[in-house]
């Protein structure tokens, strides 16, 4: 199934919007995580963790799932690029799957920090978790930047599957 030019542009616009939005939201999350672990003000720390849960729930999770489950597969399978024909697409897919999995693994700790901040029970025992938020969001930001670079530069290299398919398809 090949998408028509109009639909392709619409899906591409949605894909770029979601992926760049995801990157921006993770950058905002990282800033809040740094404030949460470094600020001396209890109010500032509480505000940071409460905001992190809201950003995760309403921005990061939706923006991570839409490109992975909807616009990415549509763009790949609905165009001659394919999903497994070029290494850069396979690598980008793997990075997106891993980033989303790591995000989903962290939703419960984020919720815990938010509840602890709201109830004023944030303790020294949570410090390693606070640092983990900084490390995870920093790593996520780097991964998403790598994805953006791959999408723009599209480094050459065809998978063995893609190589075979280009000869199987009618010219």
């Amino acid at each position, binding site marked *: 199934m090949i998408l028509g030019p109009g639909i392709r542009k619409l899906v591409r616009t949605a894909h770029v919007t979601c992926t760049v939005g995801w990157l921006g939201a993770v950058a905002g999350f990282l800033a809040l995580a740094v404030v949460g672990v470094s600020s001396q003000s209890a109010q500032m720390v509480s505000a940071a963790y409460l905001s992190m849960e809201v950003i995760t729930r309403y921005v990061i999770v*939706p923006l991570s799932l839409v490109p992975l489950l909807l616009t990415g597969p549509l763009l790949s399978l609905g165009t001659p690029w394919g999903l497994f024909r070029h290494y850069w697409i396979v690598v980008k897919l793997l990075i997106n799957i891993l980033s989303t999995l790591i995000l989903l693994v962290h939703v*419960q700790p984020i*919720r815990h*920090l938010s509840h602890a901040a709201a109830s004023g029970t944030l303790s020294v025992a*949570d410090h390693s978790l606070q640092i983990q938020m900084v490390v995870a969001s920093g790593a996520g930001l780097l991964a998403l930047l790598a994805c953006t670079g791959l999408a723009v530069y599209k480094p050459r290299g065809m998978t063995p599957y893609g190589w075979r398919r280009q000869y199987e398809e009618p010219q």
Partner: protein
Amino acid sequence: MSETPKRPDPASPPATPLWVKIVVIIFIALVLVVIILHLMGFGFGNHGASSFTSYAWLMECAADHI
């Protein structure tokens, strides 16, 4: 004079590009780091006494967006 360019052999795909090999090495290194950190006690999840599991939290998020 001019030779007809040879058509690449479909049976022998080109070698894996260098950048892919570098990405694979970085990926394996990162996985090892995560495993080592995990074994050292920097685990995931099970923090605090939250009654919500990640799955339940996700379902709640999904319900918000439907």
